[in-house]
């Protein structure tokens, strides 16, 4: 029997990860529920005036999306590490670069993508201008992918640790900051009447950069965590 090729292997891995997470729908729903609840906190804290909420909405939505992403970052390799399939993955003849990439893609499909698709609902609740909603959706689609890739580095480095939950936030939040800056600026740009394309282009550039380099760091991190 010959080992499946790189692409076939990554495809199967992607399917496996998605199926595994679909079997635990509560875990998929948790970050989304968190998103909804934190959005509900802001009118309580800032006051219900529509104008105030609308002016803060781009930043708020982006910060909450970022935190929701942070919540799910820790789970990326956790269950695979615990049942030993992560070790199998490291021993597999296929390059770790692509298999790690399909793990992240699977995670993004059930977290970042859903978050972005749900965001227009919360944007309306926070009185964001209707014209800004497509840009919010697009910026979240691009941005959460970067966040998932960067979060994967933190997950790979802390997966072997028993108390990794809070640590991962400390490690990766500094790297989330540029994404937050450009993501919220894109939405803000539409509100002030400036074209949002430059910001989206920079987010896309960050995504390309992260796609190229983050799997390398993740692979190195996983090897260290498994060895420890």
């Amino acid at each position, binding site marked *: 029997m010959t080992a499946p090729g790189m692409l076939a292997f990554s495809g199967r891995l992607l399917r496996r990860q998605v199926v595994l997470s679909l079997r635990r729908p509560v875990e998929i729903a948790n970050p989304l529920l968190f998103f909804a609840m934190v959005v509900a906190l802001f009118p309580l804290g800032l006051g219900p005036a529509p104008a105030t909420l609308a002016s803060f909405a781009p930043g708020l939505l982006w910060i909450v999306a970022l935190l929701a992403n942070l919540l799910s970052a820790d789970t990326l390799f956790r269950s695979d590490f615990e049942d030993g399939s992560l070790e199998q993955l490291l021993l597999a003849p296929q390059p770790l670069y692509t298999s790690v990439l399909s793990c992240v893609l699977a995670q993004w499909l059930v977290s970042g993508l859903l978050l972005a698709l749900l965001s227009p609902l919360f944007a309306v609740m926070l009185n964001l201008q209707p014209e800004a909603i497509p840009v919010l959706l697009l910026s979240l689609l691009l941005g959460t992918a970067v966040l998932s890739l960067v979060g994967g*580095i933190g997950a790979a*480095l*802390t997966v*072997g*640790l028993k*108390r*990794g939950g809070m*640590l991962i936030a*400390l*490690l990766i*939040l*500094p*790297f989330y*900051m*540029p994404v937050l*800056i*450009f993501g919220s*600026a894109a939405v803000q740009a539409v509100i002030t009447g400036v074209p949002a394309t430059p910001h989206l282009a920079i987010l896309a550039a*960050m995504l390309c*950069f992260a796609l190229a*380099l983050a799997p390398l*760091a993740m692979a*190195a*991190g996983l090897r*260290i*965590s498994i*060895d*420890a």
Partner: protein
Amino acid sequence: MWSFFHKLGSPPWLYRISGSILRWLLPLTLLGLALGMTWGLFFTAPDFRQGNSYRIIYIHVPAAVVALAGYYVMATAGAVSLIWKMKMADVALRAAAPVGAALTFVALLTGAIWGKPTWGTWWVWDARITSMLILLFLYLGVIALYEAYDNKEAAGKACAVLSLVGTVNIPIIYKSVDWWYSLHQPASIKFTGPSSIDPSMLYPLLLLIISFYALFTCCLLMNMRVGILQREARTKWVRKLVGL
């Protein structure tokens, strides 16, 4: 050249040579710091716009410069550790992190104290201050990650990966924070760079920058000596050193 590089990986050699370096570098550093600070505090004329409060520059700028350089020292040690699997590079990485974090803290704190008489507020979300704050978080992240691992060999490697990721990200973070600030810049606060600083004010600053670099080296070597002893506690040369 290569023999020197190999010697760097030898704990007893590194322990001995760091001891003899420290013997003259440490007094020189303390002398430089004392001289520079006295010079800056008492023997320079006050700035015509900021008055005497500008004297904080003599610790603020050197601390900031060396704090940033320290991150690259740490990341270089991380790269050496990952590429050549050199254990002493792990020790250097762990030794550099707290020194860098402390210097970043000093830079932030003196900046805040300087800000009060100059701008009327302790803290401004200015591009450079925000970047320094993020740098502090990066340092603290490395220390937290190292302490979280029980296996110190793996801890060194994990920190090496993290510091390299940080090195790739620092320019991105700095550029985006710069850009973010230029977008939101409030008109009331004007930052003027020290582009036309008088030589009489510049010389003590240069002396202090060099002294801070020397101080960083001293602290790095001293922390490394502790790290070496802890790692090599079971070896023959440490036994001989202890006197048994």
